[in-house]
């Protein structure tokens, strides 16, 4: 019997597993697939626009940040800081002053903490930069990027395409393909020799985030030295390497700490009918060979929202929570779920489970539905994390609070 069972291997679930493990709990993490880190920018968004602390105190009492509490957020950020230093994958930034980063589209992304390779130089309006793409990489467009950056008031002095040594690639390349080419040090030297002459007069160069998947800090530092320019990476459309690096960092840490990870099997909740308290006993996993039961003292549901299947929207206009069939807060009329433009605020983003300040899903009376079941991350109702720019912050704050409550 495991102490804490975490369901979901996204940023939220992985963090929860590590946080529980740090408190000496036996932790098992199950997930039917990977989470959404490979489609994310790999930064920690806490609150996009103003300084978070001011914004947080003005939030509704039912907002996940208020429910989790400021201490949970701070503890989680400190823990993440420790984890990232141990893994040689440091983040920079502070809560009080947002970090400004360019996106692959040339728009501006405001975040609280970003990995070193993205944020070390920072972009400033009076300092011209250059942007380069890499031959064969499909999803990076320096002209588009720089035209949009200029609309934002930044100066792009040069754009260019840098070649890769070796034969012509036989298909379009993803960021992960190019990262592989940077893994080997003699290859790095070869590539740098090819690039250096093209970078005459370039001080600050923005590249797509391709500089290594494993040991990416080492790769980044080495390429920067070899090229002799200040570099910064820009996350690409999926697969996004900064997201993958973060995912690897968290799952490696979890494994090192002894977390049992079971990937690939969907979970169905099991309720404990034996005692008189309302408890869950664990889950039943749909493995390749059939059902296998997993028992746990506490369960943390970190299954995400509509995108990754924590919530499922049926043909009949219902939204169901997919593991324990918990009641979901959503608009009954299907017409209300979505607004006509994807750039509008979307009501569906706020759908999810109602929880109390111990992260326990609650019923209509406000009582916890199961005393040992907790929820964290996107499965919780009440926040449009896209508009707020709060995705990762809510992930870890709620995960931290859920872990604390589960182990109390």
């Amino acid at each position, binding site marked *: 019997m495991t102490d804490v069972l975490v369901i979901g291997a996204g940023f939220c679930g992985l963090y929860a597993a590590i946080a529980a493990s740090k408190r000496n709990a036996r932790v*098992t993490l*199950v997930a*039917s*697939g*990977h*989470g*959404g880190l*490979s*489609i994310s920018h790999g930064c920690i968004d806490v609150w996009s626009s103003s300084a978070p602390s001011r914004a947080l105190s003005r939030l509704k009492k039912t907002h996940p940040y208020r429910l989790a509490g400021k201490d949970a957020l701070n503890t989680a950020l400190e823990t993440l800081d420790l984890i990232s230093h141990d893994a040689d994958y440091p983040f920079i930034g502070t809560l009080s002053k947002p970090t400004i980063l360019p996106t692959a589209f040339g728009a501006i992304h405001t975040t609280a903490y970003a990995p070193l390779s993205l944020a070390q130089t920072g972009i400033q309006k009076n300092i011209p930069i250059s942007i380069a793409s890499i031959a064969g990489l499909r999803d990076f467009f320096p002209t588009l990027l720089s035209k949009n950056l200029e609309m934002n008031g930044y100066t792009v002095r040069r754009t260019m395409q840098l070649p890769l040594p070796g034969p012509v*690639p*036989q*298909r379009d*390349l*993803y960021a*992960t*393909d190019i990262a*592989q080419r940077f*893994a080997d040090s003699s290859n790095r030297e070869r590539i740098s020799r090819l690039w250096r002459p093209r970078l005459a007069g370039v001080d600050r160069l923005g590249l797509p985030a391709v500089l290594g998947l*494993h040991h990416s800090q080492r790769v980044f530092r080495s390429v920067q030295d070899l090229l002799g320019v200040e570099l910064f990476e820009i996350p690409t459309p*999926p*697969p996004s390497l900064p997201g*993958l690096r973060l995912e*690897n960092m968290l799952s*490696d840490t979890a*494994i090192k700490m*002894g977390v*049992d*990870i*079971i*990937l*690939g*099997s*969907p979970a169905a909740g099991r309720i404990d009918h034996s005692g008189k308290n309302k408890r869950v006993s664990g889950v039943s*996993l*749909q*493995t*390749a*060979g*059939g059902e*296998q039961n997993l028992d746990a003292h506490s369960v943390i549901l970190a299954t995400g929202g509509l995108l*990754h*299947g924590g919530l499922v929207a049926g043909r009949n206009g219902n939204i169901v929570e997919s593991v324990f069939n918990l009641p979901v807060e959503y608009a009954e009329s299907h017409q209300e779920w979505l607004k006509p433009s994807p750039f509008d605020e979307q009501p569906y983003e706020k759908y999810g489970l109602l929880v109390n300040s111990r992260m326990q899903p609650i019923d209509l009376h406000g009582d916890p539905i199961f005393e040992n079941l907790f929820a964290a991350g996107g499965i919780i109702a009440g926040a449009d994390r896209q508009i707020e720019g709060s995705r990762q912050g809510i992930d870890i704050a709620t995960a931290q609070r859920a872990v604390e409550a589960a182990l109390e």
Partner: protein
Amino acid sequence: MIRDFLAADQCLKCNICTASCPVAKVTDLFLGPKAVGPQILRFRHPDYALPNVGEEWCSSCGTCSLVCPHDVPVAEMIARMKERPTRKVPWRDRIISRPEVIGRFASRITPLANSLLKSPRLRSALEKYLGISSKAILPALARTNFKKALREYYVRTPNRLEEISRLTVGYFHGCSTNYFEPRIGELAIAILERLGLYVFLPPQVCCGLPLQSNGLFDAARKLATQNIKYLEPFLRERIPIIGTSPSCTLAFKHNYRAILGIDTEESRLLANSTYDFFEFILHFMPDELFRIKFRGVAARALYHPPCQLRSHGIGTPALTILREIPELELEVSESACCGTAGTYGMKSERYEVAYSVGENLFRKAITMDADFIMSDSETCRWWISKHTNLPAYHPLEILARSMGIV
């Protein structure tokens, strides 16, 4: 194909599978699982052949299906695309996909076979004329095969087991244990007996997985049907089947239904009754297991969970148990696949790619100064051992050492 469409409905094109594919990462000759699986499916037509889109580069490691958050069985779709009529399958593939035939033939001339396999001239001839890479891992045959050595464990029908009061399990040894590594089977049985189980060997044939991964579905189905027929009487008596080779047990649990299309009450019964060795002892005998005082094994070791094991969806039960062994300094491989993926790495045209897939893993083993490697799958063991010059053991061998059995 309809069934594939139903599954492809779920694909969001998010590229999580492509990002995790060990082969796509190292070669641009493979378009990636998304492209070759759910994407190209929409262009298939029953009456017209699809142009080759490089699906033969897929090593069938199963990582794509495993990581997909939307339950798209990508690997299975690609595996089904590989089905070909026999006449289109090269002789080499028809040979290497039949380890039982090779084993049966070669074990008649074991010493000769073993020295021939070591001959560089023969190996380069095999590469030149058949396309078996001269660097492929062709293991040495055991002096006496397992089935013969342990024939007193053989039980043909369940009525022979009626008087047994202990929990009874059947052991599926597979071709590798039978012809190449009987020691693993012996130790497996010893451990199970030590835990109080009654172990026997049911009638069995090769699981057929190498045939399936080489596109020879009809031949694979014949073996599958044979195994189901042999094992069914035992399964109806609720006797579980345990295997030490995760590829064999995956075939029973999953491939027979999901890829070969044998979806019957019997095949489902087989799937539900099959267990990986560590899965079984962890789930069914935890008290007996953890009552044992494990002896220390003072060593640094790298454990590599095979891709076939990951596809079971049971996590890494061997790791849970290995963690309990005192003095054992364990590190876990972060690689999804060691590269060989069964017979893939044996093929001369695939060897370079297979090697590149495993490079990080080999490097890790060497730089961490490991004393040995552990992996549940035989082809992983032979392959990693060859490329690191380190001994490679099935984790149950280390467990046996720690239990004082060896």
